Structure formats: structure tokens, C-alpha cells
């Protein structure tokens, strides 16, 4: 198979683009997709500092790598979930990456903030582990960004993540979730920072290939709590559709963003308050994070 750009030997075929690339041309293709995402959604300006949420996995480290090479001022944030050896290994990957690239990395432990690590939160709440974990991560990313004076948080969500989330929302017609699904969520309150997903144009196979070709040492093992997660089942379904019809995931997500999302925008504005406990933003009186921490405290 030949590289579409230079005619050399290809290392990766991208069926949805009806193309294959050699390593250097694939890396340039990848960077161009990130540049286009940042430009199209005005994710951040050249001089804005960016908080990059990193997990030690391929997506977030690939994102951090591109942003550093593009000359952005970045700070990494690793949230230690306390998931046994998995968290130890993933934190080590982030620390090693930050040290090699000479960039700052902040580390926060969920246990310090919530009162218990994710495995305990899982058993206390009796909800799927991804639920309490995701809630804690979103809250802490925003709070750390505010504390550090950083106006925007970038996460490594890729095209597959976004298509799977959209699939789940549509399967259950969660119409309140649909307008929130966007590669860039603006700040709608002084205590809410912008959230952006510069990898939304790239599949997870492409982010894995980028990380491999850039020799980034990322954690390949899955989170031990991911087995059985609904999002994995959705990804499986979408990958079968992709195999039968290359471009299916891309068309599903991009079609939604370009043609359908606006139709689900709320007519009435949501009222945002500040949590009476922590001061962070909530639609109620006490935020979901403080309620979770209360629940953990009562049980531990």
C-alpha cells in the first residue's frame, strides 16, 4: 500500500478517507486535523494557557504532545483515581512524559477531594464506576483550572468517544444531553471554564497510531472498571458499522454537529447557581460533587 501523499510505503490505511499514509505524512495529517479542530471551534487563542487533562492513555498524551509541538503554553493535570496498580502505572506515564518534554504537571488525588478513591466511591454509590469517576473528573478539572487561572481545559476525547456518547444519547433520546455534545463548550458562568476536545476529528485508531509513531509511552491496558461499560458496547456496535461502511462513525458525529445539534438547543435558559458548600456552579443548591462527597463521608 502506498502513501497517498508521497507514494512511499504506507504504515496506516484510513479507510474512511480512502487513503493510506507513510509515518511522516500521517503525523502531518494528524496535526492538521487538530489545527482544523482548534480553528473551526475557536477552541483557544495562540497566547492562551491551556490545561490539558491527562490520564496516561494514548489520547490525552497524544493531544498534549501535539499542543506542545504547536507552541501552546500547556499545563498537564493528572487526576489520581486510586484504581490500584492501574492508577500507579498511568500516573508514572504522565510524570515521565512531562519530565521528558519539560512541561508542568499538576496532580490531584480524588481520595483527597472526595474522601475515597474511585473503587470505594463505586461501592458506596452502587452506581456504575464510570459515573462517580466522570463526575469527579469534570468537577476537579474545572476547579483546578479556576484555581490556576487557566481559561480552558482540553481533553483527549476522540471521534469514537464522541460518536459512542452520541449513540448512547440518541438510543435513549436524552434530548437534554444532545445540545451539550460539542467539541467546544463555552464558559457560561464566571466559575465555568471553557471545555474543548481538539481530537474530535480523529478516530482512536488514529490517536493510537500517532502515539505509537511518536514513541509515546502510554498505558495500553484498559481501566479495570471499563469492562462491561455501556460506552464499550456502543463502540463495538459502531465499529461493526464502520467495518461494513467506512466513514459511518464520522458521518454520524459530523452530521449531528453540522445538521442536527442546533435543533436540540434549549429554548429556555438553564439557571446556574453557586453551590452553597463549595461555590462551584450547579443548577440546584448543592452541587452533585458535594452530594457525592457527603455520601462517601457517611459510608466510609
Amino acid at each position, binding site marked *: *500500500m502506498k502513501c497517498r501523499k508521497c507514494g512511499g510505503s*504506507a*504504515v*496506516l*490505511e484510513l*479507510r474512511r478517507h480512502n487513503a*493510506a499514509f507513510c*509515518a511522516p505524512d500521517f503525523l502531518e495529517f494528524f496535526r492538521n486535523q487538530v489545527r482544523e479542530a482548534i480553528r473551526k471551534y475557536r477552541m483557544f487563542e495562540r497566547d492562551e494557557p491551556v490545561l490539558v487533562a491527562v490520564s496516561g*492513555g*494514548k*489520547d490525552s498524551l497524544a493531544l498534549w504532545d501535539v499542543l506542545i509541538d504547536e507552541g501552546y503554553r500547556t499545563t498537564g493535570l493528572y487526576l489520581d483515581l486510586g484504581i490500584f496498580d492501574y492508577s500507579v502505572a498511568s500516573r508514572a506515564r504522565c510524570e515521565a512524559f512531562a519530565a521528558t518534554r519539560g512541561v508542568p504537571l499538576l496532580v490531584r488525588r480524588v481520595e483527597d477531594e472526595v474522601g475515597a478513591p474511585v473503587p470505594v466511591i463505586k461501592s458506596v454509590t452502587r452506581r456504575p*464506576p*464510570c459515573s462517580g*469517576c*466522570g463526575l469527579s*473528573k*469534570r468537577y476537579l478539572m474545572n476547579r483546578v483550572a479556576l484555581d490556576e487561572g487557566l481559561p480552558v481545559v482540553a*481533553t483527549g*476525547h476522540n471521534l*469514537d*468517544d464522541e460518536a459512542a*456518547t452520541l449513540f*448512547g444519547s440518541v438510543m435513549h433520546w436524552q434530548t437534554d444531553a444532545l445540545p451539550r455534545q460539542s467539541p467546544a463548550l463555552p464558559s457560561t458562568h464566571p466559575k465555568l471554564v471553557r471545555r474543548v476536545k481538539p481530537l474530535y476529528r480523529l*478516530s*482512536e*485508531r488514529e*490517536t*493510537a*497510531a500517532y502515539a*505509537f*509513531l511518536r514513541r509515546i509511552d502510554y498505558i*495500553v*491496558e*484498559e*481501566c479495570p*472498571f*471499563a*469492562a462491561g*461499560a*455501556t*460506552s*464499550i458496547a456502543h*463502540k463495538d456496535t459502531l*465499529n*461493526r458499522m*464502520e*467495518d461494513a461502511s467506512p466513514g459511518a462513525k464520522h458521518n454520524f458525529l459530523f452530521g449531528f454537529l453540522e445538521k442536527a445539534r442546533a435543533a436540540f438547543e434549549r429554548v429556555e435558559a438553564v439557571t446556574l447557581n453557586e453551590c452553597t458548600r463549595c461555590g462551584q456552579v450547579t443548577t440546584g443548591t448543592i452541587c452533585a460533587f458535594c452530594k457525592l462527597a457527603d455520601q462517601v463521608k457517611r459510608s466510609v
Partner: protein
Amino acid sequence: MKVLLRNPRREVEVAGNRRVKDVLRDLDILPETVLVIRGDDLITADQVVADTETIELRPVMSGGVS
């Protein structure tokens, strides 16, 4: 050939010189879900892997919802 798989980590033997796409089909693995690694390189589905070689099929899926 020797084929390395992950999650869980294991090895399987596939007999003969085979194209990558045929190896994936035999193992019921969708091409979209793995990187195919030979040594320090990625290889495409049309490449032939010799019976004496080792390849890694590295899953690309990350799980959970954050």
C-alpha cells in the same frame, strides 16, 4: 507466526505466511480496533507476515465515559 494480543495479554500461533487482513479475519478482529505492529513499525492490512515472524495486535479502544 506468533501473534501477541492484549487485554488480557496472550499469544496465539497462526500457521503459514499470511496477509494481515487474513490473520485478523481468522481471529475475528475488526481492523478498525487494532494497530498491527511488527518490530518498531506499523504495517497495513495488505502486508504479508512470514511464518517465522511475530506481530502484535494492539487494541486501540479506551473505555468508560468521562
